[in-house]
């Protein structure tokens, strides 16, 4: 007798579990989600593999020749075939710069959202679970934070740090500052949602039964309530990544973000802006299109996820 006959039920792999789950099914049935996912993965893969696939290194001054500046993309007259998407005002290959810039934008977006999620989830869990005065205090803090717009906080913070550390130090640590400021400015989005879910979850009997089993509050919060509150967190996370990328682009466009020597999509758009009326529209337009597409696909994925995870739509 073979072992397979003794164990007729093979444990399905994680991948096939995910593929056959409700979410996997609705994903396959939704062409918008599939296309968005493919585009997002393409952009993400291309940007994270930038050092391998980009034809030039835009951070290496030795590879940049100012004489090559403002060549148009190859499908326009007067272009050079080695610069597929043309060059920017400093003579950098636009394709390579966009790949590196997208990498920076995505990195900042994801890290900022990770920071937001960490702050927001911790604060929301504590506020919701402990309740009472602490809850009121934390939620009023969130209200205050929300009454400042993200950009306003970020502009003040970045302008002050730029003035304090001088622009050289600032430019070196610009990524860290951007992640910190975007991360801190948006935590209430998470905190409020998590708190609302925790308030609903903690009334359920499995929480009582966890308390009856003698578990401490930390364990109940992190191991029992949090996993049951994940669906709204996923949904906000996608939207927040898109928002963070836009915030970063706006700040860079205003000159408070990534320096021109290490451009993100926002600073590329900004640096091309001066040349738009002299005919070199591509320096702004092409990174702009990439930014729009990137944000759009993330938002479309978020929309799809919101529909799938909405309990009103799938539970009876």
């Amino acid at each position: 007798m073979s072992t397979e006959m003794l164990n007729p039920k093979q444990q399905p792999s994680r991948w096939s579990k995910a593929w056959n789950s409700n979410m996997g099914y609705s994903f396959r049935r939704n062409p918008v989600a599939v296309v968005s996912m493919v585009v997002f993965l393409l952009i993400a893969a291309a940007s994270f593999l930038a050092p391998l696939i980009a034809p030039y290194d835009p951070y290496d001054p030795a590879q940049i020749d100012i004489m090559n500046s403002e060549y148009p993309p190859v499908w326009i007259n007067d272009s050079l075939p080695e610069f597929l998407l043309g060059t920017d005002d400093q003579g950098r290959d636009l394709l390579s710069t966009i790949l590196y810039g997208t990498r920076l934008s995505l990195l900042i977006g994801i890290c900022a959202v990770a920071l937001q999620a960490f702050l927001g989830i911790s604060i929301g869990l504590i506020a919701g679970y402990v309740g009472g005065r602490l809850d009121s205090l934390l939620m009023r803090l969130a209200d205050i934070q929300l009454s400042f717009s993200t950009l306003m906080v970020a502009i003040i913070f970045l302008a002050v740090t730029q003035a304090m550390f001088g622009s050289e130090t600032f430019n070196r640590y610009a990524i860290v500052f951007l992640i910190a400021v975007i991360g801190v400015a948006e935590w209430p989005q998470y905190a409020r949602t998590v708190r609302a879910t925790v308030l609903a979850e903690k009334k359920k009997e499995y929480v009582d039964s966890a308390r009856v089993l003698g578990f401490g509050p930390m364990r109940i919060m992190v191991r029992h309530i949090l996993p049951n509150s994940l669906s709204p967190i996923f949904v906000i996370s996608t939207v927040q990544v898109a928002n963070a990328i836009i915030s970063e682009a706006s700040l860079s466009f205003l000159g408070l973000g990534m320096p021109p020597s290490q451009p993100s999509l926002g600073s590329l758009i900004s640096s091309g802006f001066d040349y738009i009326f002299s005919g070199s529209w591509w320096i702004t337009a092409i990174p702009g299109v990439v930014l729009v597409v990137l944000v759009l696909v993330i938002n479309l994925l978020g929309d799809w996820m919101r529909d799938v995870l909405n309990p009103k739509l799938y539970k009876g």
Partner: protein
Amino acid sequence: MSLLSVRDLTVKFAMRDQTVTALNGISFDLAKGERLGIVGESGAGKSITGFSLMNLLSRPGYIDNGQILFEGEDVVQMNDKRLRNLRGNRMAMIFQDPMVTLNPVLTIGQQMIETLMAHRKLSREEARQIAIVKLREVYIPSPEERLEQYPHELSGGMRQRIIIAIALLLDPQLIIADEPTTALDVTIQADIMELMLELCQSNQVGLILITHDLGVVSQMTERTLVMYAGRIIESGRTREIINDPQHPYTQGLINALPQQTLPGQRLKQIPGNMPGLASIPTGCAFNPRCKYATDLCRSRVPETVHYGEVEVACHEVQRLNSDEDRQEARA
């Protein structure tokens, strides 16, 4: 020494404009391995009693007064750390609805192993072995496979068995079962009750069974408390209480059983409703619904007296009894 000794337990709820008393001076004892039933209508304070025993009341409820001595230690005075050591480990609780008591996102195995490892220094593999043994004890077929399953993959009866297995994981001295079979259908109810009875007897585990089902109480328990509006109004051996209830409320409960009525007749229900906690009548709380009520009943709370084989809190118990004797004589 008894396993559990509750003395004069008073639980209050601080509402916005007033404080209401949910439990009013409850006292009872439970010997090791003894099975006690707590019966009463909804709102009598049965579940509050269960929660208080674990000191698990959450705001706005609080223990105002009294002692809960469990193996000689006062649960009311315990700090959080000792309470956590008590809960699950020495005292376990089983809830009403098995559909919502298990955490939906963790597998059965994860929940059982977590419980064991939170209280005992065990390796994951040792914990798994204990979990499998306990699942066998509650007659779960192929427990190894069940460990990998999520609660939604199992039926209600199966889940309640697993919940019982979790309650027994750490070999507690006392299990508090709060209407453990109300959410199950009748055939499975009988199975689960039989299982609980068997496990309690073989492991010498004390049981407090909170229910409104007198039939279950009569099968399962040795002693019974009848509660009304936050007080114990009658207590004693289950057989005596079922066969010869003294308090008019207990009599009403037993007369209201469908078995007590011939087919085609109306059920003999007790008129009126349980009073809300904010509007408990003065005197005996049952007086507005009691056909024997006198002026004394409306003005003074009755003392608990020993009458016949039971303890009963009723002013009129003697008159009532002679009344009954007369009825019997006439019949």
